[in-house]
């Protein structure tokens, strides 16, 4: 019974995170300026990281944890690089 509740909760969480990624992707495509797109890319990185963690809870293996860690690190680095590019026009001066 509780396993069924947990399965439904995992499915609901995955659906909501996928919907969050969809909202961010819509704004990523429609976004009026470049900074909106960078912001939505960052939000999509966070949502994807949470989605990977949720898949890890569902399958019960700890490999997904490391994937989520790498996704969060790469998201930080790419967002910083894009923000620097918007500010200066180049990434490494």
């Amino acid at each position, binding site marked *: 019974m*509780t*396993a069924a*509740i*947990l*399965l*439904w*909760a*995992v499915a*609901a*969480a*995955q659906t*909501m*995170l996928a*919907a*969050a*990624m*969809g*909202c*961010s992707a*819509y*704004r990523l495509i429609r976004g009026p*300026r470049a*900074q*909106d797109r*960078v*912001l*939505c890319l*960052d*939000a999509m990185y*966070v*949502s994807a*990281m*949470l989605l990977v*963690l*949720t898949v*890890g*809870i*569902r399958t*019960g293996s*700890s490999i997904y*944890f490391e994937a*989520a*860690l790498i996704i*969060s*690190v790469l998201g*930080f680095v790419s*967002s*910083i690089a894009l*923000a*620097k590019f*918007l*500010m200066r026009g180049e990434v490494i001066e």
Partner: protein
Amino acid sequence: MNHLEALPTWAALLTAFFLVLGAGLTLIGAIGILRFRSFFERVHAPTLGTSWGTGAILLASTICFSALGSRLIVHEILIGFFITVTTPVTLMLLARAAIYRKRTEGKGEVPPRSLLRLPDRPASTSTPPTV
């Protein structure tokens, strides 16, 4: 689904609750991205997902794997610490870049630079570079 049935009841219920809480908060933040009008309102929205959205899902993962392994597993703190440290840095840099871009356009949507501080320093009075 063997490992999910092996969870004790309290751990399963807590995991389910925190999963739905975190995913719901992340979804609310994403809807905020979709609906706010200007960029400076929009930049606040994803912090819902990076504060309690991430925190609740990491807490659910910690509870699940701790109850499965019958010992405390806290390496999710690594992700939590990293997200907590890096999100303000990213968003402040992005907001500064956006202000800079809007100012250089000069449409008057953001206040000018010299409202709250002294006018720009004259660059020529500083010490000359020693290169």
